[in-house]
């Protein structure tokens, strides 16, 4: 695929206005049944993730169990959406999850820096897909992007998409390194037009990771692209979303920007492992009226 779009002319973003809009989402009051519904929805959108050098088979196994059994004491809970691991653990995760419906996602393309050759990135991707990954999370080359080589970034994404086959491609913009919202918008356009199925804020290795202003700009890019092409693109804010309250604010943002079609785990994900336990704690509180201590929820 060849790019025909001029990425120098992507829409401009006014940061002050974005922050104001975000503040308004955050003033929505989510109570009672809408809170319980929202929390369950958020739980079902989580990608449980472990991406550390010290990952072991045991850890991945535990995470896969948790993904299917978030908290058995509370009946009627959904499973999470996916587990996200390094390519070497994909086979194991796939086996552990069986036909639970929980997807296996894998980071590829020299995650998290992306500093490697295209050949290595393609091999990395193919290995993940051949091991059974349902989803591939790739990082863009931020250096090339910041240097203005937009078509380089485009071509790289398009090639990786090609290598993904049937796996869905999540493109990580690493917005913490892009420095402006104008750049976030531009990178979103590049990713979507190059074939991303999802656009994702962060690797979780760089601070700031997901923020609400960045997420709003990406959601607006998705909406505009949908109007232009009729193609739906998924969104995944990742990193830094650790409380149920913030997760609900993200759902409000999705609901009021993209509407209800995006309010499910096919089109929206949270990349945040610590979030799951806070959601579980809140759901238990809604069911019993009291908060339980953190030790009543498994940390996997």
């Amino acid at each position, binding site marked *: 695929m060849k790019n025909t779009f001029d990425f120098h002319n992507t829409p401009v973003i006014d940061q002050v*206005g974005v922050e104001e809009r975000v503040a308004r989402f955050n003033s929505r009051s*989510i109570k009672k049944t*809408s809170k319980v519904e929202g929390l369950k929805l958020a739980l079902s959108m989580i990608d449980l993730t472990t991406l550390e050098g010290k990952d072991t088979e045991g850890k991945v196994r535990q995470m896969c169990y948790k993904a299917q059994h978030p908290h058995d004491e509370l009946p009627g809970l959904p499973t999470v959406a996916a587990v996200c691991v390094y390519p070497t653990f994909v086979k194991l995760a796939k086996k552990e999850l069986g036909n639970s419906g929980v997807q296996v996602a894998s980071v590829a393309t020299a995650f998290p820096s992306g500093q490697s050759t295209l050949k290595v990135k393609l091999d990395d991707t193919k290995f993940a897909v051949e091991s059974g990954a349902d989803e591939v999370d790739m990082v863009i080359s931020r250096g090339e992007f910041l240097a203005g080589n937009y078509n380089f970034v485009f071509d790289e994404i398009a090639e990786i998409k090609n290598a993904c086959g049937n796996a869905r491609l999540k493109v990580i913009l690493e917005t913490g390194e892009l420095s402006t919202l104008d750049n976030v918008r531009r990178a979103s356009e590049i990713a979507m037009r190059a074939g991303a199925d999802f656009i994702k804020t962060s690797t979780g290795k760089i601070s700031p990771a997901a923020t609400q202003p960045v997420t709003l700009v990406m959601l607006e890019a998705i909406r505009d692209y949908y109007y232009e092409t009729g193609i739906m693109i998924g969104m995944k804010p990742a990193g830094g979303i650790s409380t149920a309250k913030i997760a609900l604010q993200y759902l409000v943002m999705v609901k009021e920007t993209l*509407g209800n079609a995006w*309010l499910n785990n096919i089109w929206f994900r949270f990349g945040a492992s610590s979030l799951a336990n806070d959601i579980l704690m809140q759901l238990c509180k809604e069911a019993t009226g009291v908060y339980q201590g953190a030790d009543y929820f498994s940390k996997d």
Partner: protein
Amino acid sequence: MNTKTTTEKKKPKLDFDSGWNYSPSPESTGHIRLEKRYDHFINGQFVKPAGGKYFPSINPATEKVIAEVAYGDERDIDKAVKAARNAYEKVWKKMPGAERGKYLYRIARIMQERARELAVIESMDGGKTIRESRDVDTPLAAAHFFYYAGWADKLEYAFPNRKISPVGVAGQIIPWNFPLLMAAWKIAPALACGNCVVLKPAETTPLTAMKLAEIIRDAGLPPGVVNIVNGDGKAGAALVNHKDVDKIAFTGSTDVGKIIQRAIAGTKKKATLELGGKAANIIFEDAAIDQAVEGIINGIFFNQGHVCCAGSRLFVQESVAEVVIRKLKDRMSTLIVGDPLDKNTDIGAINSKEQLGKINEYLKIGVDEGAEMWQSKCSIPSNGFFCRPTIFLNVSQSHRIVQEEIFGPVLAIQTFRTIDEVIEKANNTPFGLSAGVWTDKGSKIFNLTSKLRAGVVWANTYNKFDPTSPFGGYKESGFGREGGLHGLQPYLNLK
């Protein structure tokens, strides 16, 4: 880029209606204290009306009476003016500025302490959303007292090399759209400059002014410095025509403003009039479009459009008109209309039955004149006075909905091609209170702010208020400035 074929295949549409919805989240009213009946506040005390008559104040969201309020006439006004004159001569004008400032600070602090109560009553009495009364009206009202408290002992620095003295007794008449804020807006600078006041709140929204009277009493302000007389236009007329009033400060309709100006012509009375508006909100093709759409929403739907500086005439550059209107419709579809006390409500109740009637009449006029009307599909309560957010497309300068102030959630949209064209159209109105400009180009902003004949021009934002910033109009939008350093001047004699 070939997008035409794909869009023809399937028309993309967003769905904001079904699915996950917000449960009601009403603000508690358990903490507020409302009397059944409110009198006038004259000479530091609550006094019954001379005529013995009361009128109901209605909650526009429920149509229920929430309190009765004294109906004032000339006798009540006369009593209040006398009290003000007495306090002025004997106490207030002699008091050092630093001391006056202390009282203002005290009022501001009590307003902050009672902010929740003030916000809830403001929403119940006027129909505005709790989100706005809590986040805008109440804090801004307190901020005005804080700001002018700071000036009370520094007036000679505000006007260097001039001899300053207070004007005397100020008669102040305020509208129903921002009852508490307008009261603060008027009272704070007057007191800071050493004047005493008689305030006449609007008849549909008198209750927060009465709460303010309680606060003023609790702050220990000397009796007579602030007097509040309730009533309708009759009391207002009596105040304007009272011979011992030195200054009239009026915020309200242009029609009444003209009557006031005629009434005080040839008298020694000073005046400031802050009247209607029909502001141009201008969106250029190079603007940050999504944020501009948000600015359109804030410009026209803030406070149900009951804002004299509302951006009620939208000018969109033709090249982006289609996309702006589509985005605007999507955004309007997410606005929640309903119970003003629900924290999730975006648009509350229209202030009165009368006003709703006026808005509906304009909707009919717009349709009759051939404009294309579009309203969001939101549900609205069966009781109370509500109006769906509305836009009119295909309008031109000669339409009445473009020329006349509607004072409701109704936006008239026009397109333009060149900058000269839009400047001409934006200025082609009897009003000149405010305007908005949306562009990514700084040079364009400065070009327009100097050419638009409006008292306030916002750039890449809309409906932002601050006590440090002057506010006021040109032409039929009135004269004089309120707020900021400029807001002191009408309350001072400068030599």
